[in-house]
């Protein structure tokens, strides 16, 4: 009995002295465990910077810097360029067929998959470089359909061109019209219903738009 009383008399700080001493070490260990995420601050290899997020039918404003190698416009070689594009979702609907293309690896909807047509309205200053444009369908559990591979080397298996460009365009430069509409088809697992569209030109910037 006396021993119990003694322990109580020692006070909370003294009784927990060992745990208090260990606590900073545990905090340091936890910080070390997630520190790999800090890499995204200076070398973002993922879509980590959500620039804008809008509801159904609203217009998202994409702004992102990229380092131009001058492949399209030699005057911009080795400079940082700010790309600004407004994007609005006009329609997202499930379709029964796939676009016909001689470049397609897939010419009919794979078993267990579903095809969705996404129609967008884009606005950008004429001459804006829209290379590496990506349109993704994202479900509520975070599955991203239509994301380009990291290496960026895999062509669209449906044989579609740049999803930001009108179908007959030969390059990736924003047309003179300033505002134009595009349509692209993406595959998801059958039964999955997309909640959001993600729009990006590669890491790290992207915008999200709710599906109407």
């Amino acid at each position, binding site marked *: 009995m006396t021993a119990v009383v003694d322990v109580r008399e020692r006070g909370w700080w003294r009784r927990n002295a060992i745990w208090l001493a260990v606590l900073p070490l545990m905090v340091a260990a936890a910080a070390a465990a997630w520190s790999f995420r800090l890499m995204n601050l200076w070398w973002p290899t993922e879509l980590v910077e959500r620039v804008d997020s809008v509801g159904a039918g609203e217009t998202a404003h994409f702004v992102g810097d990229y380092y131009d190698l001058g492949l399209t416009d030699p005057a911009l070689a080795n400079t940082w360029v700010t790309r600004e594009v407004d994007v609005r979702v006009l329609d997202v609907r499930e379709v029964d067929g796939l676009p016909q293309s001689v470049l397609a*690896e*897939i*010419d*009919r909807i*794979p*078993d*267990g*998959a579903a095809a969705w047509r996404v129609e967008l309205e884009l606005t950008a200053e004429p001459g804006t470089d829209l290379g590496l444009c990506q349109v993704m369908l994202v479900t509520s*559990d*975070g*599955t*991203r*359909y239509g*994301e*380009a*591979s*990291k*290496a960026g080397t*895999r062509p669209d*298996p449906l044989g579609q061109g740049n999803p930001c460009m009108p179908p007959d365009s030969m390059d990736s430069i924003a047309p003179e019209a300033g505002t134009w509409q595009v349509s692209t088809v993406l*595959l*998801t*697992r059958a039964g999955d219903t997309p909640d959001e569209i993600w729009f990006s030109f590669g890491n790290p910037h992207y915008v999200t738009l709710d599906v109407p």
Partner: protein
Amino acid sequence: MSRRGFSWRTMLFAPIAIGAATWFVTQVPQDTSVDRPFEIEGAVGETVRLDYADLAVTDVRVAQRIDGEGGAQAGGVFVVVDAVWEAADRTLSIGGAELVDAQERTHAATSRSGCATATTAVPAYGQRITYCFDVVPDALDGAQVRLGRGGDGEDGAFQRRDAVAVVDLGLDRASLEEASADETPLWIDAPAPVVEAGPGGEENA
């Protein structure tokens, strides 16, 4: 407490703390539990569920010659492994492919004659890929493939603490005799999306 008292305690305890921390780190078993990949075992024809993708090894064949993008004659014998990858929730690069035999010798996949060593997996549908391994004949008994998204790095660095599928190929000496009897080169298809479901899947032409 005086400034001086703080100072001598620091001088006494800091080296002890650093020494203790160093000793602790050296006690951590780094070669086994800390950096080993999470191996998930499967068999030919089964789907192995990794946290980032589903993998099915659909067929295993043994051949002396293969043909695809130009033919190739095996230095030992070719083990040809057909697999289908489907990513869980995002587009992935799949780069890890090695064959480990019963003596724990590791054989890297070859890119000869159109055999693939890496692919890109997406959610929504499977991606079929054919791996080829040129191995010494006595490596067939008990051979397993280790397939994962991390590459083969010398020290397995890209598979550290990541899921890797380990699939027993069910090969033995008889497989070699069959391969030796058949002179016809085995045709290697290029990687392609799987359009038709079913055992092995049927890729789009």
